[in-house]
């Protein structure tokens, strides 16, 4: 199928485009992006009043397959992704078994080929079983299709081992995605350490448990030359460390997640377990520092850290509930409301954080509307408002802190590799 998307406001930060253009999609790729296209095509889509952008790229999602299909599957997770405007999601290796070998990478790729509604980039583990003891085979996992390595929820505690891992990563040219946490400092903690943890009577997780490992990993990045990506930055000290490292020329990139700038630790006081995530929601000061870091480029990307858990796992005492919230379906709206509307970033800046930069960080062929690029496209109605209700959630799990929120900005159409997978907010049998 040849499509022309007409009259939309095309935002393509890779080519510094922000203006009304038409886009011709053919053979799965972007063929042209010009004013007033008159070429022949099978279908014209009128995108007047809407934003046309490269499909969003999530650096950090948990699709739970294989092993925890009760929480999410590749099918349900990518469906949620498309609803949220993502055309690529990076799946983290904390599956059962962990994605720590070329065999498991291939197994996930097979599931993706069969079930996924959008592209899935695979992050392999840094260490076998993510146990922090022995380094996984990065080269072979890369060969099998992994695009990055991460031990995800388990920070590599052994600094000597981490250094070796970064050396290997530099050699194999894979990005290392670091979940930074000193598990001894954060042990049994469930909310940010401070007045809130004290008054709730819960064990706190200090910012230091995060930024001390951020500092270590930056130092190791500088020493080894590996590309280090800091996951879900939540506190102002981490921001400052990354800012300084960047200005010193260290190869470091960073992401944060919408809940870290849209919410604060005060949201936890009702013991709502959908406010429990790791790292925890921090103070208002931290959230403000993150906004500033998004504005000045210290934070390169907004990732979801989409972490599905079932109702029965979450409907328990705060201490017993697992960490994590879903986020694929709300990331764009929250970013529009919290970042664009409050003038932290321009629309083009937002698309950079949600598409162009994440693609660049992992070296993916995505995040751009350049001629010849895969036609991964999202069309957004930027002003449409809606109430985010539990029954609207596409993800298998419903653990969102934003249920009941009035959100703004809705994805209307999505193309993945030239296939139209969403039309006027409805999923559609993809046809090329």
């Amino acid at each position, binding site marked *: 199928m040849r499509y022309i998307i007409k009259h939309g406001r095309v935002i393509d930060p890779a080519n510094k485009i922000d203006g009304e253009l038409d886009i011709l999609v053919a053979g799965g790729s972007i063929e042209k992006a010009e004013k007033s296209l008159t070429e022949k095509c099978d279908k014209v889509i009128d995108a007047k009043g809407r934003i046309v952008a490269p499909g969003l790229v999530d650096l950090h999602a948990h699709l739970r397959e294989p092993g925890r299909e009760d929480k999410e599957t590749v099918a349900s997770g990518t469906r949620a992704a498309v609803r949220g405007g993502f055309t690529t999601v990076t799946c983290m290796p904390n599956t059962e078994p962990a994605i720590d070998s070329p065999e498991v990478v291939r197994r996930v790729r097979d599931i993706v080929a069969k079930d996924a509604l959008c592209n899935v980039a695979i992050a392999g583990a840094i260490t076998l079983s993510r146990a922090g003891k022995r380094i996984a085979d990065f080269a072979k996992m890369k060969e099998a299709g992994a695009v990055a390595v991460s031990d995800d929820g388990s920070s590599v505690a052994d600094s000597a081992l981490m250094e070796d891992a970064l050396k290997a990563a530099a050699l194999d040219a894979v990005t290392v995605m670091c979940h930074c946490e000193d598990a001894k400092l954060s042990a049994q903690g469930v909310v940010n350490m401070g007045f809130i943890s*004290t008054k709730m*009577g*819960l064990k706190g997780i200090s910012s230091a448990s995060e930024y001390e490992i951020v500092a270590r990993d930056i130092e190791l990045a500088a020493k080894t030359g590996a590309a280090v990506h800091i996951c879900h930055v939540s506190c102002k000290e981490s921001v400052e460390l990354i800012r300084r490292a960047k200005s010193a020329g260290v190869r470091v990139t960073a992401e944060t997640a919408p809940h870290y700038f849209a919410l604060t630790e005060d949201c936890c006081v009702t*013991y709502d377990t959908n406010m429990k995530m790791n790292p925890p929601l921090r103070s208002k000061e931290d959230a403000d520092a993150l906004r500033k870091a998004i504005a000045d480029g210290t934070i390169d990307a907004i990732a979801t850290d989409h972490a599905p858990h079932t109702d*029965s796992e979450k409907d*328990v*005492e*705060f201490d*017993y509930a697992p960490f994590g919230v879903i986020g694929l379906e709300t990331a764009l709206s929250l970013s529009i409301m919290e970042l664009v509307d409050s003038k932290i970033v321009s629309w083009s800046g937002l698309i950079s954080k949600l598409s162009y930069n994440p693609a660049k960080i992992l070296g993916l062929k995505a995040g751009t509307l350049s001629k010849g690029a895969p036609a991964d496209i999202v069309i957004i109605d930027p002003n449409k408002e809606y109430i985010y209700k539990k029954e609207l959630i596409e993800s298998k799990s419903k653990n969102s802190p934003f249920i009941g929120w009035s959100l703004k900005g809705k994805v209307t159409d999505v193309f993945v590799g030239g296939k139209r997978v969403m039309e006027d907010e409805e999923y559609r049998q993809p046809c090329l």
Partner: protein
Amino acid sequence: MTKIALNKSVWKKKDLLGLEYLSKEEIEFILYTAGSFKEVTTRQIKKVPALRGKTVVNLFYEPSTRTRTSFELAAKRLSADVINIATESSSVKKGETLIDTGKNIEALKIDTIVVRHNCSGAANILARSVSSSVVNAGDGWHEHPTQALLDMFTLKEKLGKIEGLKVSIIGDIAHSRVARSNMWGFTKLGAKVTVCAPAMLIPEGIEKFGVKATNDLAEALDGADAINVLRMQFERDSAVAFPSKLEYFKRYGITSEKLAGCGKNIVVMHPGPINRGIEMSSEVADGKNSVILDQVTNGIAVRMAVLYLVSTAKDGQR
């Protein structure tokens, strides 16, 4: 009792989860109501029909003798029927969640659940999952509101007021729900509160409670009208934090000598059970300044007031 009936409108909550969530007026109203019930407990026949036909369930996930007995007696003196459910292990280990347990108990058509739980926030979670009244009998390190209410009741009884008093809370503040409820309650009623503990037992952000924190016992005792001495739980979390019992007693243990140095007659409270020779000497525990056994007695009147008020408020919501 007529005065209570007239003022019933002050209290509208079906639950008592913590003193953080109460206004000064609500706290004063509970204390006032408790005063009327205290009179009942001194009668020859110590029973009133206020909750006749109602059922109170004591749902205890942690072992407790004194609090459970006090609640049980309070309910019985209001003529309620009482069921005790003691669950030593946590709900998760048992395979039934707290919410499921709560809903199952409610299906037995009971009226009030008194819950004690090792997890902070358990009472909050239970209260929003059931329509029965929920009374927090201690949740993790979070709150133990009836303990703080009986502390306030006892001190008011002794000194005639709370406002303007200097009250010092001494001991493991970090791991104490009694400390938290005391801080909320006493500051709301206008007392000047100081908390005193070795640095590792004072949690982050404590000054935001509106209290003063010190590591120096002399400072906590200086000018104090009352002290509330907490149990040092060396068998639990405090153990890792402080080197030895003897060292603790030397620095923070309350002795007659230390009290004598203050000039003032300081009222001594303790939520019990006392570790004699650790946080307090026997001489102080049994001495003339101690109101520890009055606290136990007053606990019944305070819990009668709480059970009565939440039950009446719930009936009013129907």
